[in-house]
């Protein structure tokens, strides 16, 4: 177990493509860090640089007290779980688990003990003699995990390990990975593009965009206070509604309608207003009582019942800006119907319209 430190790490590929643009993260001992972002944001490159599978262009990566920039992947004391499992197809499950230990000249009895122990934890004891091709996707995933566990490394690296599994299995394995990581207390770095996986697994989230860190923080803090419109629209499902707001000497006003009041405290001419679908309620009539909450008037386009709740997909009559609102399960709204919505001040986020950065109110 150990800490991992990334100090202004950059990755430039041939042809001046900068995949990672100076990223610094301090990962504490035993912490579960999730790197999340859309494809091409540099999250996998970053993980592969920690693993030693990619060279580091500039900057420094340390595992424990040791700078590992020039250290061979096999000597970094890390174990990696790959997206497509990357099991050795010609070896039995037992040998898949034992391979990394044999190459480190570990004592046979100790190898056997560790393999059996990992097999017990992961409930793959019955398959130890099988070849990977005789296993289901979920079983292969467990073997891949087992291969990491037996090494008892300083850190686990996960590269989208669940994206090849079906939805049900994915939820199950997600819970298992979290339980396992907490049980072993091994420092982990986990890459995913799935914000739900990121939210549920992480001790701390690192949201990446275009090779830069957009935000680092505990999942709930990232959800409560997204640092930018990018984070706001990436974390949370359905995504946060982002509405255009004009500001002048008279105060603030929504481009779509008049339901916003309050002084233009930040002195800018344009803002982006963010409200999550789950933070609006349908009201009989606009309150218009002058406090800084938001009143909206929308036209219903589609009602989407998902069971436990329903979502209204609507738009503003004035501008055509679209909006998603969560309403109670079994609600009945007709397309074309006009609705009044209300969001409380504490649930309203302001962002700079140009930079997208959060403005604290």
């Amino acid at each position, binding site marked *: 177990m150990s800490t991992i430190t990334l100090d202004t790490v950059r990755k430039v590929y041939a042809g001046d493509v900068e995949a990672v643009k100076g990223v610094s993260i301090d990962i504490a001992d035993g912490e579960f860090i999730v790197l999340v972002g859309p494809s091409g944001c540099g999250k996998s490159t970053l993980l592969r640089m920690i693993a030693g599978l990619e060279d580091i262009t500039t900057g420094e990566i340390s595992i424990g007290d040791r700078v590992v920039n020039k250290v061979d992947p096999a000597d970094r004391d890390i174990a990696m779980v790959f997206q497509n499992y990357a099991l050795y197809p*010609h070896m039995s499950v037992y040998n898949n688990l034992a391979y990394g230990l044999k190459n480190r000249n570990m004592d046979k009895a100790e190898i056997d003990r560790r393999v059996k122990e990992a097999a017990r934890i992961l409930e793959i004891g019955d398959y130890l003699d099988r070849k990977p091709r005789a296993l289901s996707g979920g079983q292969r995933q467990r073997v891949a995990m087992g*291969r990491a566990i037996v090494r008892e490394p300083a850190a686990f690296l996960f590269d989208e390990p669940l994206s090849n599994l079906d939805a049900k299995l994915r939820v199950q394995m997600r819970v298992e990975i979290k339980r396992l990581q907490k049980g072993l207390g091994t420092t982990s770095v986990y890459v995913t593009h799935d914000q739900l996986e990121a939210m549920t697994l992480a001790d701390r989230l690192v949201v990446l965009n275009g090779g830069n860190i957009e935000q680092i923080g505990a999942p709930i803090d990232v959800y409560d206070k997204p640092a930018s419109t990018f984070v706001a629209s990436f974390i949370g499902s359905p995504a946060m509604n982002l509405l255009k707001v004009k500001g002048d000497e008279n105060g603030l006003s929504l481009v779509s309608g008049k339901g916003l009041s309050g002084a233009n405290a930040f002195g800018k001419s344009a803002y982006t207003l963010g409200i999550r679908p789950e933070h609006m309620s349908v009201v009989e009539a606009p309150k218009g009582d002058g406090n800084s909450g938001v009143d909206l008037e929308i036209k219903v386009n589609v009602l989407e019942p998902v069971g436990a709740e329903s979502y209204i997909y609507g738009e503003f009559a004035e501008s055509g800006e679209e909006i998603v609102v969560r309403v109670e399960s079994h609600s009945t709204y007709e397309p074309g119907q006009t609705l009044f919505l209300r969001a409380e001040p504490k649930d309203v986020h302001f962002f700079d319209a140009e930079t997208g950065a959060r403005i604290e109110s």
Partner: protein
Amino acid sequence: MKKVQFQSRLIPYLLLLPQLGIVGVFFLWPAAEAVRSSFYLEDPFGFGSTFVGFDNFIDTVTSTDYGRVARFTGVFTFFVTALSLGIALLLAVKADKVLRGASSYKTLLMWVYAVAPPVAGLIGILLFDQHVGPIVDLVAMFGWEMQVGVSYSDTAIAMVVAAVWKQVPVNFIFFLSGLQGISKSVQEAASIDCRSGFRRFWTVTFPLLAPTGFFLLIINITYAFFDTFGIIDVILKTEPGNNPVTLVYKVYLDGFRGNDLGGSSAQSVILMALVFILTIIQFRLIERRVHYT
């Protein structure tokens, strides 16, 4: 693949006819003729033939000359197969590592594939020429007076070198595509699990290449046995004298030089049986060829 429904049941057979015709005329008929004449003692001038039963086979198998040629063919096949597989594997591993995607280098390694066997033999002759051959000059610096066409072993070495040179590109192509078929993440997982590249090759890469290797082994044995005729013929300039020949070349020598059509036919029937066995092994292997997912 798209399935086509034929209106008439005859059309498929009609479409097969040209291929069957070629197989019939150029393979089945001569093969049957060879089997027939292997049981006869033919008059060299074609005036008559006498049925002699298995005499031709008995004569062939018991002759010391045949045993000598068979032994040489075995040794020749072993060296050609082992060397062309080994060199091709080495080249493929290096090309895969250093030049992922650099096609010009690969083309350079593959072009020999397009050289016809007699031309390969000719180039071999040139390389091993007594007066201007660079290889002869090279080994002369180490005190080896190479005499291709005169010394039995020197000729054999020239044959092996030319045959290997001709076959390496074929193996290279197969090994390279085999290597590129190995999942990149499996190799990366191995690089985390095993520090030594040498050990990694023998424990992960090589076993995953084994299906390709088995397949090539059969192909190469067949090649060394049969397809080296052109190379050998050019190197020997159709005057074998005391120089080594392979079984296939002996069929030609005995039949067309020695005018022993019956004996030559018996030899070719034996070779046919050999091809038959190799083909069965090959089909078995392809059937059982492991497909890793």
